[in-house]
C-alpha cells in the first residue's frame, strides 16, 4: 500500500519520462537524484544504495535507477510506471531518427554526415575505453584481465556469456582474494 503522500503513478512516469527525454550522455544520475530528493521520495542514503545496485545489475543505469526509485515510492506498479516513463521517450525519439535514417541515408550529404558521425562515435568509444582502463590502474591483475578479455574477444570471438564467466569470474576471484588479504593485514 502506498503511503498517504506517495506520488501518483502518472507523476512517477512523467518524472522519469522528462529525465530520459532530455538526458544526453552523462548527467542522468544527477538529474534523477535532484528530482527524487526535491520531491522527498527518499533520503540520500536510500538513493545511493539504489545507485550502487543499479550499477551492479545488468541493464542501463538510468533505467535500473528509475525502476529502483519507482519501486521505493509505489512498489511494483511504481517500478512499472518508472520503466515506461524512462524507456518510452528514448524509444519514440530513436524511431523518429530511424525513420529519417531509412528515408534519407542514401542522400550524399546525409551519407557524409552519417559517416562523419560514425567516426566521431568511434572516437567516443575509444576515449571511454581509455578512461575505463585508467580507472583499473590500481592493480596489474586488473590491467592484464582487460587486455586478455579484449584479445580473447578480438581473436577468438568468444561468446559474451563465456567471456563474463571466465574473465569476469577471474576478476571476482582476484578481487575477493585482495579483499581478504586487506582484511587480514
Amino acid at each position, binding site marked *: 500500500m502506498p503511503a498517504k503522500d506517495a506520488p501518483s503513478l502518472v507523476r512517477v512516469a512523467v518524472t522519469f519520462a522528462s529525465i530520459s*527525454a*532530455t*538526458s544526453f*550522455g552523462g548527467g542522468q544520475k544527477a538529474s534523477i537524484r535532484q528530482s527524487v530528493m526535491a520531491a522527498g521520495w527518499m533520503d540520500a542514503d536510500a538513493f545511493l544504495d539504489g545507485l*550502487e*545496485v*543499479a550499477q*551492479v*545489475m*545488468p*541493464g*542501463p543505469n538510468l*533505467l535500473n535507477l528509475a525502476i*529502483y526509485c519507482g519501486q521505493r515510492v509505489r512498489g511494483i506498479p511504481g*517500478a512499472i510506471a518508472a*520503466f515506461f516513463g524512462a*524507456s518510452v521517450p*528514448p524509444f519514440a*525519439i*530513436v*524511431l523518429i*531518427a*530511424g525513420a529519417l*535514417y*531509412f528515408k534519407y541515408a542514401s542522400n550524399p*550529404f546525409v*551519407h*557524409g*554526415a552519417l*559517416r*562523419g*558521425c*560514425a*567516426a*566521431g*562515435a568511434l*572516437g567516443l*568509444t*575509444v*576515449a571511454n*575505453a581509455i*578512461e575505463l*582502463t585508467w580507472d*583499473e590502474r590500481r592493480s596489474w591483475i586488473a590491467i592484464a*584481465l*582487460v*587486455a586478455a*578479455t*579484449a*584479445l580473447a*574477444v578480438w581473436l577468438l570471438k568468444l561468446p*559474451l*556469456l563465456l567471456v*563474463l564467466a571466465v*574473465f569476469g569470474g*577471474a*576478476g571476482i576471484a582476484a*578481487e*575477493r582474494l585482495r*579483499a581478504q588479504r586487506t582484511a587480514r593485514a
Partner: protein
Amino acid sequence: MPSALHNLLDIVGVFAQLSVLGFGGGKGIIPQMHTDAVTTYHWVTSEQFTQFYTIGKLVPGPTTIFAALIGYAAVPQRPLLGAAVATAAMFLPSSAMMMGFDSLLARFAASPWRATISRGLAPAIVGLVWASVLSIGRGAPATPIAYVTTAAVVVLMLRTKISAPLLILLSGGVGVVALR
C-alpha cells in the same frame, strides 16, 4: 526471406540474452550484438550497425536503445513491430531482474560482495569495451580524414568538457564536407 514471426523469435532470443548479460550499464554487449546482428543473422550491415550505434549515442536515454533500429531493419515486413519487440527484449529482462531484486536490496547493498562483484567484473567489461572499438570500427569510414576525426574526438573527449553528442555532431559536419 524468412517469415516475420521467425525473425521476431530470433530477435527475442538475441536481445533477451544481451539484456541479462548487460553488466556495467550494457557497455560490454556491443561485440556480441555485432556478431549476432551482422555476422549470424545478417539483419544489418557492419556500416549500418555502426551508424545505428552512433544514433544510439546521439539520442537521449540509454545507448542500447539502438536495438530498436536493428529490430526495425530485421523485420522488413513489419518494421515497427520489429523495433518494439527488440526494445522490449533488450530492456524487459534486466528490468524485471531489477524489480525482483528489491526485496534482497537491503542485505545486498550492505554486503561486501556488492563491491567485490562490481569491481571484479569491471576489467572484463573494460576489455569488452576495447573489443567494441573493433566492432564499431569495422563500420566506420576507412579514410585518412575519418581517422583524423576519430583521433580528434578522442583527444577532445579526454581533454575538454565538450559533450559527447556535440562531438558527434561536429564530426558529422566534417563528414558533410569531406566524407561524402
